[in-house]
């Protein structure tokens, strides 16, 4: 197995774990944790392809991963702010109890 295939398999496994977490947990914060894991798995793919691609000196994959990290940080801040806001409104972070569109 080539090194790139190993990294891709680890990223696929991490993505599946994050997806399972996002789809099965009740707590809204744990769903966000699952989404973070999926974003990180995608970043690992980008860096692995940059490393074993034909032109690593062009830095394309590296730049993609760095911008992806920045966007993920913004996403985490807004997502956790929304969870805190919902908790203040509904007094729960249990997603199974949030079944109304109207507050």
């Amino acid at each position, binding site marked *: 197995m080539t090194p790139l295939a190993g990294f891709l398999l680890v990223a696929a496994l991490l993505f599946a774990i994050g997806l399972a977490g996002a789809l099965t947990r009740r707590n809204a914060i744990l769903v966000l944790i699952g989404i973070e894991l999926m974003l990180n798995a995608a970043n690992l793919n980008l860096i692995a392809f940059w490393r074993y691609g034909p032109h690593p000196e062009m830095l394309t994959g590296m730049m993609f991963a760095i911008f992806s990290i920045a966007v993920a940080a913004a996403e985490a801040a*807004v997502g956790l702010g929304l969870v805190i806001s919902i908790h203040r409104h509904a007094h729960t972070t249990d997603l199974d109890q949030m079944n109304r569109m109207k507050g």
Partner: protein
Amino acid sequence: MSFVFYLLAVLTVAGGLAAVLLKNTVHCALALTVAFAGLAFLYLNLDAQFAGFAQILVYIGAVAILVVFAILLTKGSETPKDGVFSKTWLAGLVVAAGVFAVLGWAVLQTAPMLPKATASPAVTVGQIGNALVDRYVLPLEIVAVLLTVALIGAVIVAMHEKEGSR
């Protein structure tokens, strides 16, 4: 495939698994930090020093702390009586397993065609900085605006509303 890679892969996957499986939410956040650290070391293993240290700074330094703050502010550390998994957990697990099966099949099918190990690219932080203000200057500015908007938006969304101000 070196021994270091297997060690880091096991560390990362174990951290990710613990982050989605543990019952106590604070423990989940700590396991998430382990997974982030494993990913940072995997980036260093891939000769991407800048991305590795950015991962440590942004994820372990900022996002993990933010997650812990959110858990403590929402009293999320209390384990609910009726379990930590939702009623539709089986469907979610099946979807995730299906996605992993498809991704793993695709990787294993194309594995013989993937490029072999190459010489490690000599990339300095100076080159990355030059590329950021030269070729990638427009995305850099957009990310700057995005981060400002996200910061203000997060504060406004989470800001305490006074009674009767709506």
